[in-house]
């Protein structure tokens, strides 16, 4: 892209100049040096991820990019669509840094991803401000691309489409909910049903495998899990945490049982009074 040409990333200059500048540089390299384009985009994603994590959880900022992205994803700070794009740039950027040859269409696709992510990123760092970037305009290529290069670009483009389709299919297969579902409504429906089952158990008596026994067994396993190297608590901390969780569950059950007993007592009293009043009238 020539110097006087507007960049697709100009819109974000007022929100984050350094990231906007990297986006502009990536555009300039997309045709002449796609590996450098990906390198710049990878850096751009890293800067965005670090800025986001600094705003949300500053003490995680020392982690590497993949750990930051996973943390943001796991705690619901990075929507799936943006996470997909950021991971794709990270992955292709790493490959480029390690010497993998990058076709221009791949770099162009990641540039488009970066543009889409940028608008979301700006609204995040500006705490909900509506950012409306102009439509992505692919940076123009050399005036005379030879036939072989065009053919190669088309083949790479088709391959990228296949990879995208494959990735989407894998994601749809793995996730519990589909993207078309109204998630809050579905969550609410399931939680209401669970609460209903809980009330039935309170009123009709615990089922065969009672909840208190389940809580004890789960707490014992939870203690061992918390000691596992991936979660890294020491033995005493794990024990304390598991006991705390168990106690909260037990207190909850006791509270609900007390409330149910109170409701029953009130009902019995009401019927007694009604009987007495009928007796007096009679």
């Amino acid at each position, binding site marked *: 892209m020539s110097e006087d040409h507007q960049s697709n990333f100009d819109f974000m200059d007022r929100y984050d100049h350094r990231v906007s500048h990297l986006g502009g540089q990536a555009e300039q390299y997309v045709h002449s040096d796609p590996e450098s384009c990906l390198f710049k985009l990878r850096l751009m994603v890293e800067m965005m991820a670090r800025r986001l994590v600094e705003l949300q959880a500053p003490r995680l900022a020392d982690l590497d990019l993949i750990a930051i992205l996973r943390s943001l994803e796991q*705690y619901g700070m990075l929507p799936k669509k943006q996470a997909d794009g950021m991971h794709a740039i990270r992955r292709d950027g790493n490959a480029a840094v390690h010497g993998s040859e990058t076709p221009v269409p791949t770099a162009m696709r990641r540039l488009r991803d970066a543009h889409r992510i940028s608008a979301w990123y700006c609204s995040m760092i500006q705490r909900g401000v509506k950012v409306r970037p102009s439509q992505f305009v692919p940076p123009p290529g050399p005036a005379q691309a030879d036939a072989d290069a065009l053919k190669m670009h088309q083949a790479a483009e088709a391959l990228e489409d296949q990879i995208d389709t494959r990735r989407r*299919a894998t994601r749809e297969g*793995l996730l*519990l909910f*589909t993207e078309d*579902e109204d998630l809050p409504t579905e969550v609410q429906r399931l939680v209401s049903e669970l609460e209903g089952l809980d009330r039935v158990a309170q009123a009709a008596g615990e089922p065969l495998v009672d909840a208190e026994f389940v809580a004890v067994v789960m707490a014992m396993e939870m203690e061992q899990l918390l000691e596992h190297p*991936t979660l890294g608590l020491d033995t005493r901390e794990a024990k304390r945490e598991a006991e705390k969780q168990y106690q909260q569950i037990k207190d*909850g059950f006791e509270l609900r049982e007390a409330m149910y007993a109170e409701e029953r007592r009130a009902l019995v009293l009401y019927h007694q009074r009604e009987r007495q009043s009928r007796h007096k009238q009679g």
Partner: protein
Amino acid sequence: MLWFVAARAMAVADGTVPAVKEASAGLYAQAILGLSEEACRAAKSPEQIGKLTLVDCLAGVHGMPREQAEKIMTGVLMIAFADGCMEPLEVRWASMLASACEMTDEDFQRCCASARVIASMFNPSVPSIEDGGEAS
């Protein structure tokens, strides 16, 4: 399909859908239950899953062969363990499911131990936001 209903109920029992639970549920379906990617996608279509309630799910697992029902129970417990935190409605759902499968206490303990082992394998070493990475 019963797997997805049971798994969804456990995953959302605390009122949210953490990504870590979603991902481990999908991996479990394919790696342990042996469902194909296509079968997983089809099971989640609104026409299929939208009509099923949790009571239908309990009735479904009740009629299942023992081995299959235990695999579902183990997977559901693994989801409960995935975020290292247990909630009252998670415990309730585990109790309901285990009862519907007519499990003995020993069966349930065995499923719970297997679930913990699988959860520790699936669980990536991501530190919590609250403790700011000290647990990594």
